[in-house]
């Protein structure tokens, strides 16, 4: 379909088959790409701010490996493939909740989420989950199953339709709204937990709200597209470059940058090799990696210090 054809379709001309393609295939795919970019980049920004570390990424809380474990189990049991998004969502969310429980500090005045512990338990649980997949898949799975899983892990959007997009949008968009409204809380937390509390912030509640928002966003994205890396790292980074100050603006800019990045990458995935589709996650990493290294080399000191 040429751009001209698509254009005329927008105004109600052109043939029915093309309209069908746009309405049922292209549009949901476009919106899916936009949604996962939005979600991953925003989640990345939230986690980077919470952990005061610009190298934090949305998969930090174990969402990705939990989702992968869930999907691996689903494939092994032979569940219907249409259930994969739901299972990925549940696996990711369950792992993240476990990570939060593990990193919650005991009661009393200092009740809050320990961010260093969050990072460490996230890493530990991720390793356990990937190891479990690697142990179980070759023993119980067939070649096809393993291939199916690795395809899913690579991340991609081919064949996404409204029935997958709409449920994901239903919980991702509210989480995004919460994220955008938590900019003041992020700023207060950046003064340190004690000062934030003395300024009237319920530290534990704010941390949990922000973390849940990040997890919901990430799990939603993973359920839709598998593991698409780097957006959550580069999106916020670009946003900080364009918008040097102001949490709320930076959050919005992160969402926008992530959106543009995935749209571009998905477009690339479809058109670089005509007639063949490249995995979105791999393409993002191949193109995003060098960009990220370039950005790092220009501002390494800042990244490490902040």
């Amino acid at each position, binding site marked *: 379909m040429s751009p001209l054809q698509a254009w005329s379709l927008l105004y109600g001309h052109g043939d029915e088959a093309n309209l069908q393609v746009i309405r049922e295939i292209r549009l949901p795919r476009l919106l899916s790409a936009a949604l996962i970019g939005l979600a991953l980049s925003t989640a990345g920004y939230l986690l980077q701010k919470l952990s005061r570390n610009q190298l934090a990424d949305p998969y930090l809380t174990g969402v990705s490996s939990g989702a992968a474990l869930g999907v691996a189990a689903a494939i092994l049991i032979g569940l219907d493939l249409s259930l994969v998004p739901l299972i990925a969502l549940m696996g990711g969310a369950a792992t993240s909740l476990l990570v939060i429980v593990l990193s919650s500090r005991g009661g009393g005045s200092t009740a809050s989420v320990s961010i260093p512990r969050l990072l460490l338990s996230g890493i530990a649980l991720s390793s356990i989950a990937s190891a479990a997949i690697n142990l179980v898949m070759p023993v119980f799975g067939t070649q096809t199953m393993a291939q199916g899983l690795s395809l899913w892990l690579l991340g991609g959007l081919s064949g996404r339709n409204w029935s997958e997009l709409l449920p994901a949008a239903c919980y991702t968009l509210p989480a995004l709204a919460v994220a955008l409204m938590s900019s*003041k*809380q992020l700023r207060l937390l950046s*003064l*340190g937990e*004690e*000062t934030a*509390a003395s300024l*009237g912030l319920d530290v534990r509640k704010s941390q949990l709200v922000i973390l849940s928002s990040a997890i919901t966003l990430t799990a939603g994205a993973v359920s839709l597209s598998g593991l698409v890396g780097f957006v959550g790292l580069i999106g916020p980074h670009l946003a900080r470059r364009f918008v040097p*100050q102001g949490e709320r603006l930076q959050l919005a800019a992160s969402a926008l940058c992530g959106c543009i990045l995935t749209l571009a990458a998905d477009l690339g995935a479809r058109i670089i090799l005509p007639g063949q589709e490249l995995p979105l996650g791999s393409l993002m990493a191949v193109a995003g990696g060098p960009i990220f290294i370039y950005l790092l080399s220009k501002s390494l000191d800042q990244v490490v210090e902040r």
Partner: protein
Amino acid sequence: MTDAQIKSQEKVKLQLFSLDLSYQKVRQGTAKQGMESKSALPLAVHDVSFSLFEGEILAIMGANGCGKSTLLKGMARALKPNSGKVEFEGENIWALSPKQFASKVAYLPQSLQIPDDMKVIELINLGRNPHQKWWQPSSHMDGKERAHLAEVIEKLDLGDLKERNLAHLSGGERQRAIIAMALCQRPSLLLMDEPLSGLDFRHQLEILAYLKDLRRDGLTIVLVLHDLNFAAHIANRVALLQKPTEASNSLAALGVPSEVLGSNVSKSVFQVDIDCIETGDGRTVFYLKQEKENS
């Protein structure tokens, strides 16, 4: 003015009832290993009771590690008491929500973690958080708050620094910005942990002058101080702390600076020979007695 005189004249702002506090780290360790037998008392602050009266400036003093900051945290709702309680205007501070408490009491810890991309005005605006709804941005304010902000900025002489980055300010300027943030909470009680540390002599005096000024506006102030003469200069009363033991509580003495700081208790707490002279204008100046040879 004696302790009894203050008591008879003024309203109780904050009251401590045999407060026990322990260091955050020790608490978990002792529970597991039963270290009570080893160290005499795992409590940082033991059995402290006193009343703080409206409009007074109280200086908390004592040697390093005697629990000054811990006591202040206990008063600031930053550390839960092991036993005993703290009441603010007759209400247990832990029965109040963080927001309710923060709209009445401002607490400035010894050092504030400040992100390096934060502007002065941004920090000051965060002080209004206890009066805002959670979704309102920190810059949100009504007409009254706008006037109050202008007043605070004027009083602390921050007009020219408003748009500057906090990381680029000098220690004195930053301290002023932090105090401005606390004032935007519109507290009636201000708790400060060593507000003068790291400042040169002139700026120390400047901050003290601000605090005196604030007291005139009706603010009650508690501050941890090290310098006896500053304490005598600014405080109505001094709470002298000592390391608690089984036999004694944390509060070694409480009273008017000239009496408490010149006493034998003060000498034993600081473990130096302090003496004082009365100056002609009614002030008391503390100094260290010359050590005699071979004694």
